[in-house]
Structures are given as C-alpha cells and as structure tokens.
C-alpha cells in the first residue's frame, strides 16, 4: 500500500470515530462543579483583582479620551462586514496579506471557496512567484486550518498547517508549518507567523497566473 494511500486511510478511519457523540453539556456541568470546589478559596482574591483592573481600565480610558479631546469628529461607525465561513473555518473569499521575509515583503493569496476547494499563491518579495495551485482547505484541530494538495509529486497531501484566529473579515495566522516538504517552502511557512490576511471578493476566474 502506497504511503499516501495509507495516510489518507488513517485520517479517514480516525475521523470516522468522530460520529460517536460527546456529551459536551454533561462535561461542562461536571467541570464546573469541580472547578467551583477548586476555586472556592481564591474567589475573593479574584473578585478584588478584577475590580481593580476594571477601575484601572476606566481611569486609563478617561485619560486617553481626555488627551484626544481635540478630536471633534466622532469616529465613523461602519456596519460589520458580513462574511461567510467555509467548512474550514476561514472566510469564503480571497484572503490576502503581506509578511516580512528576510529584507523583503512577501505577499500571500489564499482563495477559499464554500466547497472547501481553493487556490494558493505567494510571492517572496524578490522575484519568485509560486502558484497559483489548486488546493483543498479544510479544518483540522480547533483553530487549525490544513491546506492539502492532491498531486502525485507530493508524498504527503498536507502541505501547510496554520493555527489561526478569525475576527470578522480578518484572519490572523498565529503560527504556520509546512508539513509536506513539497509544495510550500519552509521559509515561507516560517515567515507567516503573525501575518494578517484580509478578505476580498473572489476574482472571476480565480487567481491570476502571475503577480
């Protein structure tokens, strides 16, 4: 059995067990009960610390607003941008962001569709443009996104794993790792940590072939 085939089989076999339900509500009740017993002796201290922090935050806000007293115009209020999430947890759309790599500024483009397919392209800020390549974008562990590439040239399907947070139309990459040693260069994955991607509409025809 080929290694890639065995890996795919392992992934699907392990995930099949996810169909067995987990009683989260019961677990939460049990955890709360044990937490209360554990926390009883520090509850007063916690309340005091929270109250002090709230007071400090209020004073700090009052100082900041006072310093900015010259701003006569209230900040504009924009309605929140409505985004649709793909099954991977990432917003559907074209996710673009820049990242420092060496002395250059690279650009990453990740196109995410509703059906879990997508494209990836990145520019290293100098002269090398990779992609676009057709990829899969799926959810991994909580907060984790896995980019897969189905091509016989790569022994492993998973080519990029990212830990992300999503806030409205902004995606922040907390950490990334290339796991396939094939499509994605390690330097690119290492440089992605801290990158902020913003969501744009998907261009007709997908990502352009260059730049």
């Amino acid at each position: 059995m080929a290694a890639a085939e065995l890996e795919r089989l392992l992934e699907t076999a392990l995930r099949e067990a996810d169909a067995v339900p987990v009683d989260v509500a019961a677990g939460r009740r049990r955890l709360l009960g044990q937490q209360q017993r554990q926390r009883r002796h520090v509850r007063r201290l916690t309340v005091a610390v929270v109250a002090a922090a709230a007071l400090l935050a209020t004073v700090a806000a009052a100082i900041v607003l006072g310093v900015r007293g010259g701003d006569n115009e209230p900040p504009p209020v924009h309605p929140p941008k409505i985004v649709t999430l793909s099954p991977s947890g990432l917003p559907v759309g074209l996710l673009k962001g820049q990242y420092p790599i060496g002395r250059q500024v690279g650009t990453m483009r990740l196109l995410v569709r509703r059906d879990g397919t997508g494209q990836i392209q990145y520019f290293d800020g100098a002269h090398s443009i990779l992609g676009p390549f057709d990829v899969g974008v799926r959810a991994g562990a909580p907060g984790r996104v896995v980019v897969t590439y189905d091509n016989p040239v790569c022994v492993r399907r998973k080519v990029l794993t990212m830990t992300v947070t999503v806030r409205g139309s902004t995606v922040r990459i907390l950490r990334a790792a290339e796991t396939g040693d094939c499509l994605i260069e390690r330097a690119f994955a290492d440089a992605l940590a801290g990158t902020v991607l913003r969501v744009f509409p998907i261009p007709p025809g997908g990502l352009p072939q260059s730049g």
Partner: protein
Amino acid sequence: MHYAHLVRLARHLVDDPAEAEDVVMDAFLGLDRHWSHVRHTGDCFFYLRTSVVNGSRSRLRRLKVARSRRHTQVDPDSEPADEAAIVHLEHEHVVAALRRLPRRQREVLVLRYYDDATEAEIAETLGIGVGSVKTHASRGLHAVAQQLEGSDGRR
C-alpha cells in the same frame, strides 16, 4: 469545541470512553490551576493536548489495558452488505491495527493524522526530538501497513 475534540483524541489513546472523559477533565482542571502561567490564550490548546497525552499514558499504565477490541470486533466471515459497510470495516481494521502499536508509535500517529499536529508540535508534546517523531511515525506506519496486509490475507 476543545472539549469535544480532546475527548475524541483521548479515546484514540486510551480506548475507554469513560476514561477518556476523565483524562480530559483532569487536563482542564490542571489548566485552571496553572492559568497564571499561560502566556497566550492561543497556547491553551497545546497545553491541554499535552496534558491529555500524558494523562492517557498514565491511565493506560495504571489500568494495564489489554487493548479492548469491543469497538473493533470484526467478523472475518461476515459479508458486508454494501460499499459503505466495506469502507467501515476497513476503517475498523485500521483502528484495530493502530491500537496494537507500541504506545509511542500510536501517540505519534494519532497526533499526526487525527490532530494534524506538525512534527515539531508532536515532538514538543511528547518531549522527544523531531528525529524520534519521524522514526516512530515511520515504524508505526510500516507496522499498520503490515497488519492490514495480514488481515487482508486472512479474509
């Protein structure tokens, strides 16, 4: 969200659903006790996962589990009714093969293929080197492949 995922992860490591929930509960309580030492909330999942793996190991050692086949009993003489049943049967063989692996190989494969952990993360979780992770993964995959080929031959 983390709780359900971690319980499912623990199930693959300890075989017993009740024990898996206990392991995860202890992990959350441990996080609660050491909350002041957590530098970033984004690290919580990694802390919990490490606790779950360590807790699962302790449970198995204490219970001396002869890996239960009650979730993976397969009757080699039964005739699958349709393609879905055939796929399910194949998955049961895979999970059974995984549970027969040495502990470390099983942990590495579960973290990699169920939890999508990178080699560096697996190394950090298990407290071993990346090279060891690769070795355990390679040996584990080879052992699973051999077991599957053997079970195919018996069918």
